[in-house]
């Protein structure tokens, strides 16, 4: 079946502009995660959605970052007033049940470059 998909695959933007990154999880997966991966660094947790529960936003680095998940499926990560330090690969993952020991399946990521 189809895996996790993300769009766009690459995004180049100017400092101060807003960007939206999209994630389509595997059909039927109730948990959805956003991570940020910088060069040479481990994955940094950003936000977690589980079903209809309130999302865990504890990893969002600033109030410029926000995310929503519509209809328990597609998710959008929005970064407002982008800064150069926001440049990274943004990865989305989904899992069948509540997170943790459930296997997370990742999309290919969106490479964001802020000039």
């Amino acid at each position: 079946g189809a895996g996790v998909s993300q769009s766009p695959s690459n995004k180049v933007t100017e400092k101060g502009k807003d960007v939206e990154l999209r994630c389509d999880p595997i059909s039927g997966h109730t948990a959805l995660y956003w991570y940020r991966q910088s060069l040479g660094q481990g994955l940094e947790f950003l936000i977690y959605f589980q079903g209809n529960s309130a999302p865990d936003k504890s990893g969002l680095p600033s109030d410029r970052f926000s995310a929503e998940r519509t209809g328990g499926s597609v998710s959008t990560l929005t970064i407002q007033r982008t800064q150069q330090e926001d440049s990274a690969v943004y990865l989305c993952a989904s899992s069948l049940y509540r997170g943790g020991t459930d296997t997370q399946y990742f999309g290919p990521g969106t490479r964001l470059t802020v000039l």
Partner: protein
Amino acid sequence: EDQVTQSPEALRLQEGESSSLNCSYTVSGLRGLFWYRQDPGKGPEFLFTLYSAGEEKEKERLKATLTKKESFLHITAPKPEDSATYLCAVHPSNYQLIWGAGTKLIIKP
């Protein structure tokens, strides 16, 4: 503080030269440890989950083992297509995974 450290940062091997990658961790109440493989420009690909000390899992040329303080990913007679970055992640008592920085493995033909 929960922490995951992977070593070495990079490893270059000749084809057929076996070796091991290390993932050491300090977490409260380990509920699971994951190994993923990541190719350039792609998202991580799931390899294994280990739940308790003494557990071992194998897949082709890879074998993952777990102790109370660390996990090893053993690679036997590697091939160039095994070249990738290998990521380790642990699941502590809460539900967010903690990720290591990865080991970049290069297998030369």
